């Protein structure tokens, strides 16, 4: 219990919360009670915004819109139809969530800046509607006379009760947010916002994750807007304009975009800053903007992140999490045993694949196939299309002609996550790991697409997240197979380059793939590390995992690959046994230019 208290920054956060509660209980006057209530409402808004902006990593500019819609639904239903709180509140949550579901289909496909602009456009259309449709919305003046919160047999109207009621809802919001992010599902968000390609090639369905985050954020926004309408008894277009959106964004950035404590801290601080700076009058917004900018620059993870770093600086890093129980039975990476009847059907067949970027033919009719359990090396000079081919196979790039067949199924241009779930997993030429997660959790994330279940399962999980425990066990087994078990609890950012490469291979292995695509796995490794890696890769193949390795390093490949395929300018120019391919004149020419001989090629291999 004591250890739990001293872990991370829990102690200062709890003390801060206790101080705030004591202040609200014993010293706060009516005005302070109102201000603290507003803090709670904004905290709820920011908690919701953290899902889409913090966890899913998409800058939505529609959060204020959801807030406003929630407020208007409450306002219209309560003042015009006399609906009770128990009807208006759920409807105020459902309305924005429904809008989010409707717009999600076109909007969530969009990348970064398009997504931001599209959500901004939606917000501005709703704002115009609120102003123009004055018969229903009251136009620029909005709707006044929204009643206090009424539960059956209980009217919550005095400021202290309103405060407790709002903060009770905030607490529920915090619990749901905690549920969503604490387990394997939360880890999936972590990888996704750091690197979309890595996430989808590990089987994470980005669209589904984003959809969940977006709808949740809308629901929180609606709840906050409804509460605000009851507290200040008015809704007006100000409830959904850009200024409110900027406030919400600022609170999130200042508090910390992924931490629950950050939402509360950011909201409380900004609301109070406004109160304190009011004496500055017009200069207040200048001071406020400047302060927010300073925090943005100096504390990348917000004030909560800065506190965590300060603690690490003063007292050293938090103790590593409880060592995991390694199951006595190390889960085999291979789920299905290698089929004994190795039929004539190849595991992977690429046929006539072509892909051009503008006028450049990156791939020009490439065909190859891999049998189960073999190690195939893919070589070729820079720009010959090796990585592009891996991208096409793993679904990260769409080919314009040709087909890719895996396990007898056509997977041409299928979504990357679906291909990954069929049993193809890969590593990247440039390492794509999450630096502030431990090596173990970096690997464990590989199970999220397969085992985590959806958002609702995450919210409904009681006690330990067994999916996360199981994923960590598999991850640990995977780490052992790559010889990095001792450093598994270290944050990836602190590991040396060669180890990080192995973490990536371990992560690919943890998905239990049938086919492993390795993009220059030996790059930057010393000779000893290369030999070690080669023997480990051979052991995967011995279990029936097929390995396709892109490599420049022919010495490394010679000891590893059973067959070599050489690409040049998007075409296969040679394929066959390593010795034969290396002596092929076309290959020598592609690598070294004319009139070079084969011995030069094997010597030219970088080491």
């Amino acid at each position: 219990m004591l250890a739990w208290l001293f872990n991370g920054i829990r102690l200062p956060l709890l003390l801060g919360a206790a101080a705030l509660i004591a202040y609200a209980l014993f010293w706060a006057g009516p005005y302070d009670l109102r201000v603290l209530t507003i803090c709670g409402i904004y905290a709820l808004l920011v908690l919701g915004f953290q899902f889409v902006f913090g966890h899913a990593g998409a800058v939505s500019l529609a959060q204020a819109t959801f807030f406003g819609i929630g407020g208007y639904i409450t306002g219209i239903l309560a003042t015009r139809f006399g609906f009770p709180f128990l009807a208006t509140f759920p409807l105020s949550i459902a309305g924005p969530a429904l809008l989010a579901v409707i717009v999600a289909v076109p909007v969530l496909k969009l990348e970064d800046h398009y997504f931001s602009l599209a959500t901004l456009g939606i917000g501005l259309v709703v704002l115009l509607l609120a102003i123009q449709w004055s018969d229903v919305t009251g136009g620029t003046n909005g709707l006044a006379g929204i009643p206090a919160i009424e539960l059956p047999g209980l009217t919550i109207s005095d400021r202290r009760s309103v405060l407790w009621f709002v903060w009770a809802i905030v607490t529920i919001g915090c619990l749901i947010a905690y549920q969503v992010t604490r387990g394997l599902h939360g880890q999936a968000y972590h990888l996704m916002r750091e690197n979309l390609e890595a996430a989808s090639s590990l089987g994470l369905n980005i669209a589904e994750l984003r959809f969940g985050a977006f709808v949740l954020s809308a629901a929180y926004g609606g709840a906050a807007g409804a509460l605000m309408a009851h507290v200040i008894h008015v809704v007006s277009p100000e409830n959904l304009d850009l200024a409110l959106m900027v406030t919400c964004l600022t609170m999130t950035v200042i508090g910390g975009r992924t931490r629950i404590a950050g939402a509360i801290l950011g909201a409380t601080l900004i609301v109070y800053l406004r109160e304190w700076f009011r004496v500055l009058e017009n200069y207040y917004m200048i001071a406020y903007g400047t302060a927010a900018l300073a925090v943005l620059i100096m504390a990348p993870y917000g004030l909560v992140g800065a506190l965590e770093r300060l603690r690490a600086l003063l007292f050293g890093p938090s103790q590593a999490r409880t060592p995991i129980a390694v199951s006595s039975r190390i889960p085999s990476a291979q789920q299905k045993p290698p089929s004994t009847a190795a039929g004539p059907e190849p595991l992977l067949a690429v046929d006539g694949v072509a892909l051009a970027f503008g006028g450049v033919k990156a791939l020009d009719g490439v065909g190859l196939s891999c049998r189960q359990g073999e190690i195939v090396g893919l070589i070729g000079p820079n720009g010959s299309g090796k990585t592009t081919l891996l991208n096409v196979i793993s679904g990260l790039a769409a080919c314009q002609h040709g087909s890719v067949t895996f396990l007898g199924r056509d997977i041409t241009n299928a979504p990357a996550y679906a291909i990954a779930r069929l049993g193809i997993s890969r590593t990247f030429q440039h390492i794509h790991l999450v630096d502030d997660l431990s090596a173990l959790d970096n690997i464990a994330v590989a199970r999220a697409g397969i085992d985590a279940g959806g958002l609702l399962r995450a919210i409904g999980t009681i006690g330990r997240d067994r999916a996360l425990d199981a994923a960590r066990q598999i991850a640990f087994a995977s780490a052992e197979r790559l010889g990095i078990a001792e450093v598994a609890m270290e944050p990836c950012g602190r590991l040396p380059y060669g180890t990080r490469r192995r973490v990536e291979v371990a992560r690919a292995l943890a998905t239990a793939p049938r086919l492993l695509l390795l993009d220059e796995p030996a790059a930057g490794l010393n000779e000893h590390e290369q030999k070690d890696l080669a023997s480990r890769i051979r052991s995967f193949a011995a279990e029936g995992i097929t390995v396709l390795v892109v490599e420049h390093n022919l010495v490394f490949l010679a000891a590893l690959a059973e067959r070599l395929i050489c690409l040049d300018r998007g075409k296969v120019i040679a394929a066959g046994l390593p010795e034969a391919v290396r002596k092929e004149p076309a290959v020598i020419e592609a690598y070294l230019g004319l009139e070079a001989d084969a011995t030069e090629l094997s010597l030219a291999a970088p080491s």
Partner: protein
Amino acid sequence: MTLLQLAINGVALGAAYALIALGFVFIVNATGAVNFAHGDLVMAGGYVAVGLGAMAPLPMIVLLPVVAAIMFVVGVVVSLVAYFPLINRPPSTVFISTLLIGIVLQNVFLVLFGPQAHAAPPLIQSGILHAGPVAISIQALGTVVVAGVLIALQYLIFAHTQIGRRLRATAQDRQMAQAIGIRVHAVIAATFGAGTALAGVAGMLLANQFFVYPTGGIPLSVYAYIAVVVGGWGSIAGAVVGAMMISLFEVVVSAYVSYAVATGLLYLALLLVFFFRPQGIFGELVRRRV
């Protein structure tokens, strides 16, 4: 009003919008980031013109280089405060920092000039020229000419000078540009300066007919953003075309229906573009690498 008259008004407004969008796309290309303070920098140009006009009663065409120079410096300062400290962070961080710069600017305007609208002096003089059924103000004509000259100038600089080649190289691949000895940071700062100078000149041109006020920049940021998305992310010609399309749409629809409806329909049109062509009407020029 006849459709021809509306088209002429639309082109005059579009010329100013084109300068704004051009400055915006410069910064997008150099940094990969959206500068959400861009509209506020347009207003800043307008306010500089208002201030200069009060100090020196000269036609604006004379003061134009001064406005451009001041705004160039402002742009470099914005890059030093809101871009360079965040250079290694995701582009969304720069989006937020420029949004905050925008808030600071809006309130600086409020403190210095008050909430009311101001008009800058005209480019040459006020007055309206008549040609048959159409009328065009001298200011509108001047706006078209100034914008045309500046757009042609930027084309010449980009296509035919060493500085232009450095700018393009930096936009295309920053690491490679650095590797061949281009001082990338200086180029980026200069791009911020040039983009802001264009925004400032546009503000100066708009401030005579359409006034400047503290929050007037917000829709302009959005318009520039839309123009660049519609025209194809990163395309300079596309940004100009996109800006023209927006102004024609705005002028024609507001004449027949109302300004509010025009704005609403513009955003709806944008959402439809996203729905049917997520890569913009003219396609995307800047592609990301896997």
